[in-house]
């Protein structure tokens, strides 16, 4: 079930090479400056990473979820911020337009977004409502051939950069989603400063003040938005879990490397049993988590229900990433606490994984509901 094919091996080693040569040299800079260099998006586009699961007919790479998860794990090892950007673009905004868009919308937006190398945004969260998505306050009122949107959105990945934003709002018949142009009248976008980790990805606050959106930009029917958003989040969780595995693996790899080099009391750190045990425990958790990610991805690929497994994967791997990053700082001591080695970034990045796209508590709620439903 989890055997890699020859082409997957070549594909993953190509990504690893790209990550080593192009991402690793700038990953600290991405964190410090809280910005991803534009050239990186262009290279990601040229390699086919800005439409990973989208069919080739629409300009995508047409990879399955398992391949996508493997790609995100590798990118996550080198830069959490960049991996999160790829995730938000592919799993949230682009997937929403592709999965719930009609043929006209797919033709009109999907290839254009991929080619532009400008990541797309997805706007669900509001100041007063995150996972409690039925409590949204943003409204969309139909007026002639348009819907008029009012309200505000917060913590929106790619909110400033994107040419298009999927906005989820309340309409007369429930919750509905729309493709909103980034340069719409009445839309104000501002970058949110002071982010702990996952820096580089543009995180924004959006204010919608009588923003007119053409009715043909509605995704699906009025009232479909809640179900759509929950489905998109299910898929996103697999991707977040894949990034978690990558960050955890980076923490263990760098710790092990440092343990072999650093001496204390006349022997290198890898001779200390307490540290050996920690490495063994963490690597076991990583490999168990990776299997959960692959299981959820395989279920999604085969069209089976994956909500519970995706929630489990995200809950378990994000916790593992936190544990592994915490250990990495501890083992690196002062060198871990400071930024230069990129170790403290792992912990700061990992924390987002327990919060974004549903906190760990929400994951546990989902798991319980799935276990007890008839």
């Amino acid at each position, binding site marked *: 079930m989890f055997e890699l*094919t*020859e*082409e997957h*091996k*070549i*594909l993953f*080693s*190509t*990504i690893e*090479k*790209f990550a080593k040569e192009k991402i690793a040299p700038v990953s600290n800079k991405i964190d410090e400056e809280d910005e991803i260099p534009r050239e990186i998006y262009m*290279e990601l586009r*040229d*390699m*086919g*990473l800005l439409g990973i699961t989208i069919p*080739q007919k629409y300009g995508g*790479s*047409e*990879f399955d979820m398992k391949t996508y998860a493997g790609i995100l794990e590798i990118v996550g090892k080198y830069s959490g911020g960049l991996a999160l950007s790829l995730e938000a673009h592919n799993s949230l905004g682009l997937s929403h337009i592709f999965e719930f868009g009609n043929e006209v919308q797919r033709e009109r937006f999907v290839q254009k977004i991929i080619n532009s190398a400008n990541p797309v945004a997805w706007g669900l969260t509001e100041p007063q409502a995150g996972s409690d998505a039925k409590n949204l306050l943003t409204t969309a009122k139909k007026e002639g051939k348009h819907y008029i949107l009012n309200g505000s959105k917060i913590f929106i990945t790619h909110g400033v950069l994107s040419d298009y934003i999927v906005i989820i709002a309340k309409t007369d018949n429930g919750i509905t989603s729309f493709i909103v142009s980034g340069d719409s009248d009445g839309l104000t976008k501002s970058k949110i400063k002071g982010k702990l980790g996952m820096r580089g990805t543009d995180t924004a606050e959006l204010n919608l003040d009588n923003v007119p959106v053409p009715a043909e930009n509605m995704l699906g029917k009025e009232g479909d938005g809640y179900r759509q958003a929950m489905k998109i989040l299910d898929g996103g969780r697999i991707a977040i879990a894949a990034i978690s595995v990558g960050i955890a693996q980076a923490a263990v790899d760098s710790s092990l490397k440092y343990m072999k080099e650093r001496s204390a009391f006349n022997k290198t750190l890898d001779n200390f049993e307490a540290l050996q045990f920690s490495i063994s425990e963490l690597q076991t958790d990583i490999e168990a988590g990776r299997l959960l990610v692959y299981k959820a991805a395989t279920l999604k690929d085969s069209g089976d229900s994956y909500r519970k497994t995706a929630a489990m994967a995200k809950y378990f791997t994000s916790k593992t990433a936190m544990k592994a990053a915490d250990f990495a700082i501890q083992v690196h001591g002062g060198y871990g606490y400071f930024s230069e080695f990129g170790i403290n970034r792992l912990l700061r990045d990992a924390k987002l994984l327990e919060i974004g796209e549903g906190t760990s508590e929400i994951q546990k709620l989902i798991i319980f509901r799935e276990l007890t439903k008839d």
Partner: protein
Amino acid sequence: MVNIIVCIKHVPDTETRIKIKEDKKGIETTGIKYIISPYDEFALEEAIRIKEKHGGTVTAITMGPKRADDILRTALAVGADNAIHILSENGDSINTVMTIGEVIKTLPYDIILTGKEAVDYGMGVFPSGIAEYLGINNINNVTKLDISNRSLVASRQVEGGDEIVEASFPVVISAQKGLNTPRYPALPNIFKAKKREVKILDAKSISVPPFISGGSLVELSLPPPKKGAKMVEGQTPEEIAAKLIKMLKEEAKVL
């Protein structure tokens, strides 16, 4: 239209921790990741750029065991048109030159591109060897290449500078670092490449003239571990400089 042949070799990843086998005649290959030899990667990229600019076909050739198939797939994914795999478990430089030479003789070719050396054994015999075997022009260590009208002008690195050399087709060019920056394949092309045909030939079925190998491998050994750097300490630059000169004279004996 330029017919280009690129000769590439699969070698252990340069980050591999090499372990020598007990008989000291080879290295442990289990767990080793193989890559296209970096100089061959420059050659491959240059071939594709020439094709994109001037038209033509790129044929990638490798000689090696079954696992070398990977690098041909990568070559196809970045833009090679054809791929030939000469299956062989081992072969010394001369044998490799002659076997690949025999295969190239059956193909149309204007430019043969390859790396200046493979990063495994680093013999550097192949580029000039293949030119000699085919009796054609050869420019090595090339860092810049311009093609025009069935000939080319190449810059090659020589001690202390560059030499500009002109040659007519057919010609063997060996690539040095700096020739170009190799591209990454678009990932969907890796999957497409897997479905494309790689022509497989058995080295044993290719007859080469009788030859006496120039040498045989006696023993492999790892380089001695590097000694750490020595810091010259002192209060003033003058004092440090004086100490350094003393060390260079007395310890390193280079002055």
